[in-house]
């Protein structure tokens, strides 16, 4: 690379242009173009890092000004750490049924290309949960009980919810607004083989008007529809309530044009076997986050701010705003940030 090219790359005009591009990308870069947003936003910031490198090589003012330099170096470090975090991180969500274990294969997530997939070693069992609502359907505290494997057959019981996540293997599981019901059913086919499973119904009370789902009978390709019939209001919109499983809900099965209702414990003949409605369970939605570099990012940004504050304090000390020099003589190199010095005239 020629010397003049480095000088040109170090120019403040390049800095301003990159900042302009960064603004444009931040505002309009998520329109679903050919490249993902993460790649597009990385371009101006990558360019800013190169711009800074070039300036560090050529700009005497920057190099001799410790506070300013430290601030910029820390910002560049933050940029790199952020990129690394996004490349190794994970942001996803999962729904876990009461009484069942966490199943990593059901996680839907944005996964960084260099993410060390460790969710397979995460084990917990969903217990019950409680959610309070204030009048007007305003969601308050969520307390979700989880069971973690302990020594031998014992298990640890933990309570998570809202801003207290389950932290396990570097992953953080936050309860989300998403939760609902999941009837537990057993299908016994003509040969006497039994299959048990839960049928997830859409989020409740968000989708209280659609507590149904399509379901394929295990071992067959027969699609049926189930619906959770809630004859009584679970909640009054204008009153405080508590998320709970309804007592008198019945499971409606619609198959081959026929509609049948079951209470827990009842069964119906279906597709050459029979289907038993064991009980109503609930499911809780979690958002999952994995950001191992966050402590270092925070450290970097604190370092950056300290350098910036030091730089600004030095600047203010060196010269008063109306152009009069302070009693103490200005120290060399601390006056102007970058660029020329001025004489201020009243």
């Amino acid at each position, binding site marked *: 690379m020629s010397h003049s090219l480095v000088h040109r790359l170090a120019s*403040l005009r390049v800095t301003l242009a990159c900042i302009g591009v960064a*603004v444009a990308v931040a505002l309009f870069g*998520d329109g679903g173009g050919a490249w993902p947003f993460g790649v597009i936003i990385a371009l101006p910031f990558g360019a800013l890092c190169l711009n800074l490198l070039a300036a560090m090589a050529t700009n005497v003012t920057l190099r001799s000004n410790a506070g300013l330099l430290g601030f910029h170096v820390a910002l560049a470090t933050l940029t790199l750490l952020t990129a690394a975090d996004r490349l190794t991180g994970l942001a996803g969500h999962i729904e876990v049924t009461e009484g069942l274990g966490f199943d990593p294969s059901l996680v839907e997530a944005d996964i960084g290309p260099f993410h060390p997939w460790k969710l397979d070693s995460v084990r917990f069992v969903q217990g019950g949960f409680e959610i309070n609502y204030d009048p007007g359907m305003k969601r308050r505290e*969520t307390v979700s009980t989880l069971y973690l494997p302990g020594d031998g057959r014992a298990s640890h019981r933990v309570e998570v919810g*809202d*801003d207290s996540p389950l932290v396990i293997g570097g992953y953080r599981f*936050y309860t989300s607004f998403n939760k609902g019901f999941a009837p537990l059913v057993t299908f016994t086919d003509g040969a006497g083989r039994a299959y048990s499973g839960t049928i997830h119904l859409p989020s409740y009370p968000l989708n209280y008007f659609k507590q149904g789902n399509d379901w394929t009978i295990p071992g067959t390709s027969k699609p049926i529809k189930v619906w959770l019939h809630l004859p009584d209001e679970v909640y009054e919109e204008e009153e405080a309530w508590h998320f709970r499983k309804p007592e008198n809900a019945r499971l409606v099965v619609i198959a081959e044009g026929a509609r049948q209702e079951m209470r827990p414990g009842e069964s119906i003949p279906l597709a050459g076997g029979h289907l038993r409605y064991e009980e109503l369970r609930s499911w809780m939605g979690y958002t999952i*986050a994995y950001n191992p570099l966050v402590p270092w990012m925070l450290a970097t940004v604190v370092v*950056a701010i300290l350098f910036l504050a030091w730089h600004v304090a030095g600047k203010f000390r060196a010269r008063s705003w109306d152009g009069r020099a302070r009693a103490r003589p200005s120290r060399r190199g601390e006056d102007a940030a970058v660029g020329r010095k001025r004489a201020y*005239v009243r």
Partner: protein
Amino acid sequence: MFADGAWLPISLGLYLAAALAAIVSAVRAGAFQMTILLLSVALSVHGIAIFKRWIRLDHGPYVDLFEILSSNIWSLHFAVLIGCLAVPRIKASLAAVLPVLLVLVVWLLVVPERDTLAPITYGTIWLPVHVTLGKIFLGCAVLAVGLSLVVLARLSGLGTFVTLPGNRALDELAYRFILIAFIFETLMLVAGAIWAQDAWGRYWAWDPLETWAFVTWLSVAAYLHFRALRWSAPALNAVFVLGIFVVAFSTFFGMPFVSTAPHKGAI
């Protein structure tokens, strides 16, 4: 002393009176004692109104538009007052900045006052820290706006502001206010990210408010680099400062209300 609902309207009237007094003082090249007095009383009365609401609802003024607007009117006037007490030579810039803040006061009059409930993830120390840092940032920016308006008013012949220092000095002082604002804005972003990481597991998710706050930060960074260019001049710099303020203003008062809560992730 007053009925419960009277504190706020009285304080808004006092802000108006302070702005008028500032203009009169500027025209007469007066000493602004009346402005400072009215401003102090307005802040006290308004402070009582905010405090009473805080106690009644048991959460700070940062949930809906009314609360955010009201508390920013207070904090911006307070910042202007402190700035003018700390640097007495710029008192005359009150005549430029107080009328601008009146826009917020008038806006507040048409915003309905409703009781609000803080979402559950608002129960963290990082929220008041985040909000306070943001208010200091905006306060410093408003002081710079006042000085920049004076520079532009002089250049466009709208006012002479004879008691104030020259344009170059005002430009330098505005620059220094923006430098302080920059530090606090960075701190605000960090505190917000810590809160978001703590409450929802994501330190940054490019929600509209985050995006605009970051654009504001970038625009300040652009201003700081622009000043080091050869063609930087007080008039251009002043326009730049106003631009920053416009961006910051739409971040603070435009973006949060695209949805019902300041951060969408909060609900």
